[in-house]
């Protein structure tokens, strides 16, 4: 049995409801995410996973319900949030290095610190040789690594990722999965990670939130009680994976 979790609450969602016109997408969702928790969100295609994350950052305003980060309404100017969008979102007019530095410049970090973090991220993401290239000149996977790098560079308290590794080949995905875990452990960040890939969810998460079909509700929260580094061939790992897969299929 997992021990009682008494970390303070980082994200509090109460009765979150979102409609686009007549289309009900999120239906009275309530749950908490604790400080330093790594949560994966899975659910059927088009059920409202991105919408949920976009409400959290106030890209969309919730139709009803309350949403707090550290007890106050989410505000990117106050909280140190990083977001990896599902769609490509590198800024085409900035070089790879400037894209990674983008958030740091807004936060007015000292120049040397910015320089040093950008270099570290370029190495981490294997983008050093492209530092002066423009995103439009790179492959989809490389562009996605810019965006992931841009969010890691912020050393965020709250890291939100919307299917960040969907475009990656398996090798790159495994590598970046370990990197996000490393970042999470190093910084003690809270991570909300949306994925289609159940294996990825079980590999990464402390807790998996399963959403129902649209309109999305929380169907179940599953605590993944496996030691790290996790072994995807381990029988308990596979049992978790199959269990979640079934729960998504049978709504």
């Amino acid at each position, binding site marked *: 049995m997992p021990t009682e979790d008494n970390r303070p609450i980082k994200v509090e969602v109460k009765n979150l409801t979102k409609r686009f016109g007549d289309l009900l997408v999120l239906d009275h969702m309530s749950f908490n995410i604790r400080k330093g928790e790594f949560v994966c969100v899975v659910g059927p295609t088009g059920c409202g996973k991105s919408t949920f994350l976009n409400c959290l*950052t*106030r*890209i969309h305003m919730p139709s009803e319900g309350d949403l707090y980060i550290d007890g106050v309404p989410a505000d*990117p*100017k106050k909280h140190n*949030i*990083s*977001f990896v*969008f599902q*769609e490509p*979102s590198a*800024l*085409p*007019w*900035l070089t790879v290095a400037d894209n990674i530095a*983008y*958030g740091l410049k*807004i*936060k007015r970090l000292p120049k040397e610190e910015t320089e040093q973090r950008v270099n570290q991220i370029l190495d981490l993401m294997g983008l050093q040789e492209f530092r002066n290239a*423009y*995103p*439009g000149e790179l492959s989809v996977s490389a562009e996605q690594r810019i965006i992931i790098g841009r969010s890691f560079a*912020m050393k965020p308290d709250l890291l939100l990722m919307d299917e960040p590794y969907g475009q990656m080949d398996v090798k790159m995905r495994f590598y970046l999965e370990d990197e996000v875990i490393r970042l999470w452990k190093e910084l003690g960040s809270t991570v909300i990670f949306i994925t289609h890939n159940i294996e990825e969810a079980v590999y990464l998460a402390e807790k998996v939130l399963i959403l129902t079909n649209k309109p999305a509700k929380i169907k179940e929260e599953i605590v993944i009680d496996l030691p790290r580094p996790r072994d995807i061939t381990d029988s308990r790992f596979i049992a978790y994976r199959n269990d979640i897969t079934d729960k998504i299929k049978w709504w």
Partner: protein
Amino acid sequence: MERMNGEPKALRNVLYWGLPVLAIGLIAIGWIAFSGSNPDLMPSPAAVWSRFIKTFTKPIAKTTLIGHAWASLKRVLLALMAAWAFGISFGILIGWNKKARAFFGSIFEVIRPIPPIAWIPIIIMWFGIGEFPKILLVFIGTFVPLVINTSTGIEMVDRINIQVGQIFGGNSSQILKDIVIPTALPSIFAGIRTSVSSGWTTVLAAEMLGANAGLGSLVTRGWQGSDLSLVMVAVITIAVIGALLSVILQKLEKVVCPWNH
């Protein structure tokens, strides 16, 4: 990635260098043939060349060809600088601010279809035929394309790019400066390109109606004095300067918007 269309690269290079040369060659041959058979309608290249030399040895209105070209250029550049400053700012304003768009947009829609040349009579009546009215006329002709291109570029900004700015905590002036304006730069630059060519055309029209210096005044002078060679000299100079301006702008665009290729 380059699309392969079967032609070897070397052949393609020859083709794309050769075709423009061929086109210019054909025009030259046509000119020689036409002026040979209709000497009163079209002076020969040799006659134009000697007229060209004469603009330096025997200045017109105490000004050489260079002086006339500079007079026209100076007017265009002064007007352009004013138009860039005001047109781009105004375009950003109505592209970004919905209230400003609602207010100015309608006025602008009315003024927009008026060709710059149509302003000539009004402007001459109000301001005479001095330096200022010519510059004003060019300003009017270049202001419009700048505003249109700038505001369209601003409106086209990708929603997701603005969201990136918001997520990383940018305030609205940072988002305007770091996200919206860079997105609009290629389109602003297209406006600058249009403004230069339309400014160049407008200044010549203005000068043709009354000026004692400028390439447009040379055209009128040659026309009224039945000096067709002078007209040709002026026209070719106009074309060459127009082409040079456009080459300079192309180079400049690569410097200002390096990602856009």
